């Protein structure tokens, strides 16, 4: 999957928790989940669980540590998809 395709799949997931709707509309590789989308940190785990379900992957704690923005989320998803 290309970055664009992954962002298209990621957007409705983060949309459930993003408080900044304008930042959501402009979502790109640099978008930070907490600083830009204003996702509550307790909801970041929901994003991760939703990503696991959507892509049928398991995100280990080490990967989760880095999942603070779209760029790293996509890198992690791609790496996990390759291993499937």
């Amino acid at each position, binding site marked *: 999957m290309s970055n664009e395709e992954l962002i298209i799949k990621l957007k409705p997931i983060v949309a459930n928790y993003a408080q900044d709707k304008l930042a959501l509309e402009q979502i790109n590789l640099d978008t930070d989940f907490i600083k830009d989308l204003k996702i509550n940190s*307790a*909801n*970041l*785990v929901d994003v991760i*669980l939703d990503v*696991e379900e959507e892509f049928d992957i398991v995100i280990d*704690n080490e990967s*989760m*540590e880095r999942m603070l923005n779209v760029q790293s989320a996509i890198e992690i998803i791609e790496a996990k998809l390759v291993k499937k």
Partner: protein
Amino acid sequence: MIGNDIVDLEQAERDSNWKRPGYLIKLFTSEEQFLISSNIQPDCMVWLLWTMKESAYKIDSRISKLREFAPAKLVCNNLIIHDNTATGNVTYNDQLYFTKSVIEESYIHTIASITPEELEVIKIQIIETKEHSLRFGNPDSVSHHGKFLAFVYA
């Protein structure tokens, strides 16, 4: 260096389903999960532990300038709950933090510091407002959630 974190319990109930499979295991150590499952008010324990972790994390990230989402690496221990207050420790990256919490009907608020002495002199101001950018004086740490805005001053 001090930190603080507030959880609006109504907002948390609306926004977070901590009973969701896989949720607790990503946020809490097995000891913390036991504290939650064995408590008569598990919701309260979830958010008490969460504010402890967040308040300590805020100190760490300000010092280290590094960010990570590793809630289970922030380990809560020595938790003592007395009436509506709680004290405890959090360890993270080999640093020990001291915490003090207040558990109210509508919110849980925790302050954290590196030394127990600092904790004793912290002044706390909690107000109900949707204006999250509001400030009074020069607080050392700010936390907002739902309808609550909390400031702490060293």
